[in-house]
């Protein structure tokens, strides 16, 4: 086998010298502690893309076509339907994949939520704020922050936050500012965090 490069060279071919795409060294996936066995029917289920989309439309008062578009052109829900509980006629997949969570399900949902939060933020910054009520700038009063957190918990999870959740979420603010963001970025990130909690996605 070590003669292969020479043989290919003689045949007018050559092995490609790794054009910035080396084969990654294999990694050992973490062993998941899935806990005691649970009957599938007794377990929670992941919302399918249509429900995730409907939830976001309701929570953020957005039309369906504003939930997520890749490259500004392609609806994420169509592109990733199979990964997040949909069907795909193109693949002849007429029943959702229910026995596992595809690798791309998590990222696909994050993209939907992040995009929807961005759309709502743009609307609120351009007119009367409906969701992102926090003031601009980098300084945030406790009262203003708590009100914003309460609004987002109600909209995204349909409940009031616990005091410790308020404290933890307020604690994110300093980090976001340190990263270069402001109050709006903080609220936007809280929207993303809550919209992608397992509480928002499982039923």
């Amino acid at each position, binding site marked *: 086998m070590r003669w*292969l490069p020479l043989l290919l060279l003689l045949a007018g071919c050559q*092995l490609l010298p*790794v054009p910035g795409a080396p084969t990654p060294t294999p990694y050992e996936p973490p062993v*998941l*502690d899935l806990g005691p066995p649970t009957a599938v029917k007794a377990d929670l289920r992941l919302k399918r893309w249509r429900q995730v989309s409907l939830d976001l439309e309701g929570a953020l008062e957005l039309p369906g076509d504003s939930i997520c578009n890749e*490259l500004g052109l392609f609806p994420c829900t169509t592109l990733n339907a199979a990964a997040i509980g949909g069907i795909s006629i193109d693949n002849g997949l007429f029943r959702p994949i229910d026995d596992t969570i595809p690798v791309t399900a998590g990222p696909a949902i994050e993209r939907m939520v992040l995009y929807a939060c961005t759309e709502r933020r743009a609307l609120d910054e351009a007119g009367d704020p409906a969701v992102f009520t926090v003031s601009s700038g980098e300084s945030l009063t406790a009262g203003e922050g708590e009100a914003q957190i309460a609004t987002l918990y109600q909209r995204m999870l349909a409940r009031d936050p616990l005091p410790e959740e308020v404290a933890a979420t307020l604690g994110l603010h300093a980090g976001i500012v340190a990263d270069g963001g402001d109050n709006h970025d903080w609220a936007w990130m809280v929207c993303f965090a809550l919209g992608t909690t397992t509480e928002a996605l499982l039923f």
Partner: protein
Amino acid sequence: MLAGMGAGAVGVGAGGLTMRARAGVDGPKYLIVIGCFGGASMLDCFLPVDVNEALTHEQRGTVISYPTVQPSGSNIRCVDRNRPRQFLEAHAADSVVLSTLSSSVNHNVAQARSINGRDVFAGRTLMEAVASVHGAGLPLPNVNMGRGGYAQPGTDARLDPRFRAEVVTNPVTFALATSGHKGLLPVGSEPAFDPAVRAAMIERTRALRDGTLEEMSPFGQTFANSRLRRKLLGNRAGVERRTEELDLVQKLLFVDDFGGFLPLDDFGLSGSAEVDRVLDAFPGARPTSTSGIADERLDAQAALAYLLLRTGSSSAVTLTEPGTDGFLAFDQSHGNHRQAQRTHWDRVLRVASRLIGLLQTAEYEDANGPTGTSMWDRSMIVFATEFGRDKWDLGGGFGTGHHLNNGLLVCSPLLRGNRSLGVPDPNNGFACGFDPIDGTPTPFDDVPAGEDPLFSDPRQPPSEEAVFGTLLHALDIEYDGQEVIGTMLKRTI
């Protein structure tokens, strides 16, 4: 199992369903399945009856036949047409053509059986078996761009769900779903639109969400033992993080910016370092409209397949010939047999040949770095198909129905290549079987001209189980009760 094949097929182990692999001896192996949707008839490509030998029967017509050729250096004969001839000129040394007998003429059933060997390995598909052995450490071990039965998961409930197929609906945009945020928003100067700042904010927010809020929430506490919830959180901490760290969102992009049709630059994305090379091989992989669909969908599937293997993301990938109409592919033979077979054979052979070319010139690296060997040296392409087609030319633009007797093309340096196993009978169009040890054909000598051999005839070719077992054996995977066609293998069993 038919007697002819059963007598010689080698059983590896007996009883139980234990899986053993020899992976690790010389590293991983890669499987590429090309689903030749609709019935790719070997009589119309690599097991042809020569036009000068075909029987004409008063009632049945003439056995489907062609001018044939055996290219220099090839032990395999083909229809004398550019694409099959060029394929053999380039790849005969790695190619095995064997006659086969399918067990269903229902598309979906036969497609699934072509990849699961009629559930002989506990219902595990070829791709699942390969992923579970050779893809254990990879982020996307088994990726399926197939359709119908070729995209159907196996039925082995004990299979780790990580090795079930990741279904791809559009290869062009699939890479985007390997990151939760990258390339989602247009690039701008505001922090939210600055990719680096946004990435930092998202990392910080995810840490709060997964490390703190999930633990605090009444929902999280109530459903702390939910397996699905743990799996979701496990994916976030494991494989999702891995796909982002590997930057698969760019490394699996086989297209570059294409203005209004694919404005990657505006979203801070650039294609794989091998974009030019891949698009040179598969020019149809790029979309030329705002639909996001590639001009040639099979080109796009092959381009993604190459990058999945090349980047060490996957060990098993599945493509399906979508056909010129996006659906029927080889099944257009119902309308015009010869035209459909020619069109779709040429398409899959063109794409496969170029994919092999890319893999041959991509160096395989192991943990110690470059090996001096190519990716192709450890790869296998299976041209899976559900069944053959009827054997008689009725004149004019005749159409054909489904037929159990057919053949299979497999291309891999891991097989004893340049072999044609089984021969087509000019008196009825059936491909006969062969001795599984030495490959000697078992012709239907005593069947009267114009009559069909019985499907129970022991001289019929091997069925799905033996083919399935042999392919996995060549890929270093063994299971108890495995049937193996020894003459296809390089090493002695």
